[in-house]
């Protein structure tokens, strides 16, 4: 595949992302009315109407207050369903002493003053753990500036003044000034670098289940997603790309397509994704239906580059053939080989997990308006306004300053919207045709074109001492690599931290631990999926530990706790899980329970799954208990919702279809074959949050996912005596 090497930009590595995720933009700007934020057409699309803020004073880039007292808080973390539209502004509002229902919340669009790459993105469960102190400081700084402005006006000591309900009050005299009255003066003051933060005991919002301000707009049809963005004169585009990924466009004939009423143009367009370039033909029309009809009438010749022979059966076989390969050493403690060789009891097992799609309910889409002066404006559902700005600038070869991004509500993300290929498609098309262009993918496009979560296979080996203790444990991951499919600078000689994620991080006190990575090439684009590789490797890791417990004749919970003797978060979490799940209470015949836990970059959670054999001979998932360890919690109800969602997503990935290939293309193209969990399949979920303080704040969005599949498979074993070592598995055919 030929491409301009200058355009071949690396997908920002997970490591770089995680580093940046902990550092939201720390720069404070001063002065009146950041006009670049204002008066843009996004106002017509925003979740909340009436955003006219022509004379708003900017206390920090995140806090704007106009003379009427209307406060606008800028939220750098896109809302993809995880609740950052409430939880992040709440961090500012708590310290600013304003109620969230009185402020307007707006999304930042990648502007420099809100921080560099990845600081305006959502992923890695990083919004709260990365921004908790930073965003509180933003609010506290603005509060101190307003108090200082008031004390100056009254000519009284700062110490005699305090803020409450968007008002500064002089305690001795009872005099009051509203934030609106103070904003202009306050904005001229220097921003305190180390403002005094509130004592958590005085919190009125943080730690409480405050209703989300986006929810009312999501029950009346008013919330505006990328899909809903419109500008005058825009054309709708549907793009025909080869379902055999990696094919080249030979020629196309649009004569019939152009005859469809409403179809305006047919043009070539490139899909850019990391090192990958995919050619396609866009049909542009007055309405989306016409674009779809035109696309159907299009005749395209592809050169499949031999990729049409690719199929999952052979690829999976090739991974199994790598079972004995040495691979690259990841984690190494003690001497696994020697201990394993000499141990009285040994176990080996092979685990398999599938490729899956992200399938957010809102298909990929973007609206781009390229203007003759090389400026471009985009409206897009994305997990990072900064990512869109940067990627569009690179692909169009313009300065990022020329790119304005309006971040809309996301109809789901799950990692898919960390890749901005759909945004650059719209940008390229708008530049080509000289009109605003809205690209809308079909569900078939979304399901069949990737990027996908990688499949991972795991070769497990373990050894028990004579008294049944786990003394050696090896996890060898055999898989394609996310980074290798996106970057042409991938180094196969180095351990792939993303593909070994979490395997060396569990707190189990096993003296001889070895992790290895065996890489396998693939031409299919792969990317992060909610909880990344933990979503697959935890299955092998925690099921195999169950196998060891069984071999040792021990209870799976007791076996784990015997390996967690030190005072760790993992031990506290598991102890709590044992208690809340009623682990020691016997279950009736035909029922079983299983346990699993997982600790990784995003956080820590454990689950107990209860299943029963149903009348049709299958398995019903009755209930899931989850303990998630956070340290500090911002919105308990949001956490609960995220865990419920993670469980639904994990259950889908474990028991539905996954993505498989035949003749170079995905077998599944829509929800008929790529089935999702439905309401009657959702188990009861009971969530317990550990928020006992401490310096560490852990993530929310992802940790609820990895324990589900292994806890479920372990429960199936408990109920039926059958080991599930391959995902997905059909609950009705265990």
């Amino acid at each position, binding site marked *: 595949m030929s491409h301009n090497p200058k355009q071949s930009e690396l997908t920002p590595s997970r490591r770089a992302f995680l580093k940046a995720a902990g550092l939201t933009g720390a720069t404070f700007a001063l002065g009146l009315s950041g006009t670049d934020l204002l008066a843009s057409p996004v106002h017509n699309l925003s979740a909340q109407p009436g955003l006219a803020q022509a004379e708003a004073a900017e206390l920090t880039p995140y806090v704007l207050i106009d003379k009427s007292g209307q406060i606008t808080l800028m939220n750098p973390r896109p809302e993809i369903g995880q609740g950052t539209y409430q939880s992040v502004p709440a961090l500012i509002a708590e310290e600013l002493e304003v109620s969230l229902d009185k402020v307007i919340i707006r999304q930042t669009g990648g502007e420099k003053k809100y921080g560099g790459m990845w600081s305006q993105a959502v992923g890695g469960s990083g919004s709260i753990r990365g921004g908790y102190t930073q965003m509180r400081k933003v609010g506290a700084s603005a509060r101190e500036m307003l108090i200082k402005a008031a004390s100056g006006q009254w000519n009284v000591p700062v110490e005699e003044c305090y803020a409450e309900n968007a008002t500064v009050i002089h305690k001795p005299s009872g005099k009051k000034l509203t934030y609106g009255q103070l904003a202009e003066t306050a904005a001229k003051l220097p921003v305190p670098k180390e403002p005094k933060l509130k004592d958590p005991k005085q919190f009125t919002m943080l730690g409480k289940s405050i209703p*989300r301000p986006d929810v009312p707009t999501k029950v009346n049809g008013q919330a505006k997603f990328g899909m809903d963005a419109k500008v005058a004169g825009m054309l709708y585009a549907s793009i025909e790309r080869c379902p055999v990924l990696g094919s080249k466009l030979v020629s196309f004939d649009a004569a019939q397509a152009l005859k469809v009423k409403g179809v305006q143009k047919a043009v070539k367009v490139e899909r850019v994704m990391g090192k990958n370039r995919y050619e396609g033909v866009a049909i542009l029309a007055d309405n*989306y239906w016409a674009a779809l009809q035109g696309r159907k009438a299009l005749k395209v010749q592809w050169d499949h580059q031999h990729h049409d022979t690719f199929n999952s059966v052979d690829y999976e076989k090739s991974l199994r053939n790598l079972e004995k390969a040495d691979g690259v050493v990841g984690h190494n403690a003690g001497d696994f080989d020697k201990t394993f060789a000499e141990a009285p009891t040994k176990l080996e097992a092979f685990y398999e997990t599938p490729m899956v799609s992200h399938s957010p309910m809102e298909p990929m889409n973007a609206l781009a308006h390229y203007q003759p002066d090389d400026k471009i404006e985009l409206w897009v559902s994305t997990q990072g306004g900064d990512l869109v700005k940067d990627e569009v600038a690179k692909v169009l070869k313009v300065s990022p300053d020329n790119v304005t991004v309006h971040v809309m509500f996301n109809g789901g993300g799950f990692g898919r919207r960390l890749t901005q290929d759909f945004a650059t498609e719209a940008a390229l098309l708008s530049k080509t045709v000289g009109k605003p262009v809205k690209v809308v993918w079909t569900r078939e496009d979304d399901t069949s074109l990737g990027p996908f979560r990688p499949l991972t296979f795991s070769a497990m080996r373990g050894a028990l001492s004579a008294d049944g203790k786990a003394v050696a444990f090896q996890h060898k991951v055999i898989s394609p690599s996310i980074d290798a499919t996106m970057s042409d600078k991938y180094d196969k000689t180095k351990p792939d931290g993303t593909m070994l994620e979490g395997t060396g991080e569990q707190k189990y006190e096993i003296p001889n631990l070895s992790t290895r990575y065996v890489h396998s090439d693939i031409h299919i684009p792969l990317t992060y999926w909610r909880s990344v590789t933990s979503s697959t490797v935890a299955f092998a890791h925690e099921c195999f530990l169950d196998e060891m417990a069984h071999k040792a004749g021990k209870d799976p919970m007791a076996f784990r706790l015997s390996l967690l003797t030190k005072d760790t978060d993992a031990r506290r979490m598991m102890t709590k899980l044992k208690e809340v799940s009623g682990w020691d209470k016997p279950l009736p015949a035909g029922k079983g329970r299983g346990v699993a836990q997982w600790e990784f970059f995003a956080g820590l959670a454990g689950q107990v799954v209860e299943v029963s054999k149903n009348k049709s001979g299958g398995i019903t998932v009755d209930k899931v208990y989850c303990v998630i360890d956070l340290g500090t919690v911002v919105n308990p109800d949001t956490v609960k919702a995220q865990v419920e969602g993670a469980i639904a997503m994990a259950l889908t990935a474990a028991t539905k279809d996954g993505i498989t290939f035949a003749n170079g293309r995905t077998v599944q193209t829509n929800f008929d074959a790529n089935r999702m969990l439905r309401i009657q399949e959702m188990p009861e979920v009971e969530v317990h949050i550990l928020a006992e303080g401490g310096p560490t704040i852990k993530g929310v969005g992802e940790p609820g996912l990895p324990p589900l599949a292994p806890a479920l498979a372990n429960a199936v074993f408990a109920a039926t005596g059958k080991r599930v070592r391959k995902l997905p598995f059909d609950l009705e055919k265990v």
Partner: protein
Amino acid sequence: MAAVKLTINNQVHTLDIDPQMPLLWAIRDVVGLTGTKFGCGIAQCGACTVHLDGNPIRSCSFPVSAAAGHKITTIEGISKNGDHPIQKAWIEHQVPQCGYCQSGQIMSALALLKQTPKPTDADIDAAMQGNICRCGTYNRIRQAIHTASTEMTSAPKLPKSAPKIGER
């Protein structure tokens, strides 16, 4: 192209469009009501659910010509101020996460509660299994339907000043 007359939320729209265009795109792109969502295009996910004479249909797979002369209701038309008991219950239980599927979920729930004012869990499963929520809000949807059912079927509360009737 032909003129198609659609009655959406009690408003009549005369549209010059392809009669084969699915109702979804007529509602979204032509009329401009964007609360109804595109999810799959093959009637598998329910995000596009609207009512045709009070019955739920998947508008992505329903030609606009077949909707002419019928009463169409979208999420924008179920209450003036977003205060239908179902909407209130959805807020009370904080059902939506990303929210993209929720218009369709609510339209399916509304049809269920019209047909079956006091649904059992099995009734809810049967009526709601055509609506996918990828965020996994299903348990909250179930709770919210029960809450809405209670409000919609309980006797209207009398104002305090009203005389008490039948008191012995």
